[in-house]
């Protein structure tokens, strides 16, 4: 046991010596369960979204990441999905359904640009792209939460009502900051269906 203890000290001593030379690496794995599930739209599983979210967390916090291409592809598809389905042209939805709040956002962040065309054509594009993603046999999962919700409009309405009630309980500042984007998003989905 004494031998092992001395090794331990040696290891820490090395760490001290090279403490300014530490590189952190995140390796994110990916499993085909995500792919498997994506081929069965009725199977709902949160695992896949979890791994994509893990990857974004690592990238977001500026880590050096080694990950399978398939996971990056899933992330790419998730972005496409959002670009088309949820928030097109920099918060298009918010602009359309809550122009006051959108104006406030613009004041806070000049990078948010108004869209000149928040109309039905954009929505049609979204739907076309959605169908495209949906039809692909190996499409990754990100679409399914929305597909499920679309098929359960009543549930979605209930979600909206509950969230809205909760938003009313919060003070104005928090409501504006935290709840509005989600409410708008839900409102938009409800209106479309």
């Amino acid at each position, binding site marked *: 046991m004494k031998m*092992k203890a001395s090794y331990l000290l040696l290891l820490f001593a090395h760490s001290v010596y090279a403490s300014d030379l*530490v590189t952190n690496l995140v390796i994110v794995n990916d499993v085909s*369960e995500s792919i498997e599930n994506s081929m069965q739209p009725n199977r709902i599983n949160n695992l896949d979204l*979890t791994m994509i*979210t893990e990857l974004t967390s690592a990238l977001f916090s500026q880590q050096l990441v080694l990950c399978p291409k398939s996971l990056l592809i899933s992330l790419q598809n998730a972005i496409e999905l959002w670009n088309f389905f949820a928030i097109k042209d920099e918060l298009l939805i918010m602009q359309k359904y809550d122009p006051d709040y959108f104006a406030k956002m613009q004041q806070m962040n000049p990078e948010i640009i108004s869209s000149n065309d928040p109309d039905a054509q954009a929505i049609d594009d979204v739907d076309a792209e959605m169908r495209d993603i949906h039809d692909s046999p190996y499409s990754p999962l990100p679409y399914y939460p929305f597909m499920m919700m679309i098929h359960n409009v009543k549930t979605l309405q209930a*979600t909206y009502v509950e969230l809205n009630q909760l938003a009313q309980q919060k003070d104005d500042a928090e409501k504006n900051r935290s709840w509005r984007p989600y409410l708008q998003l839900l409102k938009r989905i409800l209106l479309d269906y």
Partner: protein
Amino acid sequence: MEALSAVVKKNTLRLLNMFSLYCNVQIIKASNYLFKEVTSEFVLCIPHHMQHLSQIQLGLAYEKLRKFPFLVVPKVEKQLILQEAKKIDEAESLGKKLLEALQVLQIIVQDDQAWNQLPLFNIFIDGHGLYTITAGISTTLEKDEKTGIASSDYLRILDYLNNHIRTKSLTISSCYPSGQKLIDSFNLTSKWHNVYLEKIRYPLIMVGSLYGPTSMAWSKPRVNVYEEFPQFYTAQKLYSPQKNKGMTLFSDCFAFLNETPANFEKFSSLFVSTENANVDLPQNYISIKFPYASWFSFVHYKDIVKSISAIDMAAKYRNKPMLIADKIQIILLGANVITSSIVISRDTSDEKVSLPYILPINYHNQNYFFNEIALPHDQSETVQAPIINMFSALIQVEEPIAIVIKKLTTAIKTFDNVVIFTGLPWEGYDDLQTGYAYIDHDGNAFRAHWPSSKWIRRVVSEQPYDAVALKSWIEIIEQSAHATSVTDYSSVDQMLAAKKTKPMPEMVKQSKLQHLKEQQAARSIQKTYRKKQGNKKTLQR
């Protein structure tokens, strides 16, 4: 808000995850990552602040690699990549592919001096845990034809990080990287001696070491989404400077590991919030295998965790009751035989009063025997409620664990000969079963059980059981708890008929022989060294 249905919560969680994801990606896009194609399966993502570093400074051979066109990969290629990923998973060859990627990234050095110039690495492997510790990475032992040593993809990766990369620490986050998975992955045959684990020179940290799925506390909303809503803060990143714990967790993890010495206490605390400890702890419990050690040590969280060890039973609490204080939320069960009476105290004025979770941690022998557990503040009239409260962390465990409580007393009633089990085969059922059995005051036995893969049910129906069979089962569990050998649970009914003894598997035999050979070789080297030293001293004199 209590009226919110589970379905609504689930949908909202997904919606929030997606929205957060979108917001994060917008920021990632703006941060100018450099994506390099390492192999046909793996990509290295280099953040902007590291792109000016040379290969030697970064510690990875990345300069000659082709750029990967993230965000503009053509649709056809995307489909091929996903098809390929599916094949890799079916063949469980992710480990081999990862090893190939690491080999491409390795910087070959000529001597020790050059090696010491390379940076140390803190590595965090993040993934699902299915049948193996990290899904897709095989732990099946295969014998090397040249060396005769049994190894697996998983062990080869750990070896590679041991010998070819200057690894400072390795953290593995996964669902339940513990219990039988450790035994299988490292071919563990003894708690104090293991050839594979003893070779590893870096700290090996398992996040999610205990029962149940690991809750990815840093990246997804936890159970009480309306109270916690970490994803809201994530989303706010787009709109405001507020920070979410989740988004900084990787940086915080590495910062604590880079302290000298590494601050494992603070590192561990990142995965558990004290307010939610009884929810987070069983899922995110951390165990650490220190350099050259053969065992995993479970991190001790002060004030909220009480550990019951074999030493406690043999010395400190010998013939004395052990009092579990009000604050204790987790009892770590290290001892197999708990001879003293365990008295669990609870503050009944607290509206949220709940019993602590009991978590068995002795992965070498998962048979436990309690003489007595007393719950003086518990008003339960049935055995079901306290048992389900204390042992519900064993949900979804599909490996055999059996616990006997000779006497369980609440404020109202006493129950004798209680057995709690999980992951056991029962005749007539295809799935492994989880449940409990007991004998009431009139000598009648009852049992209740359900598939181990299902979440524990709050109300389960009890059925009459054979009291004689239950007593003999209790005897077997008690004997196994005392013994160093582990009960063979190939079938509960068969086990009751006759306890079988199983010969040592060939693979284990070979591994032990190999270790003996290595020991002999090491001794012979030591002898030669001592001889040389002796000769030198003689010459000096």
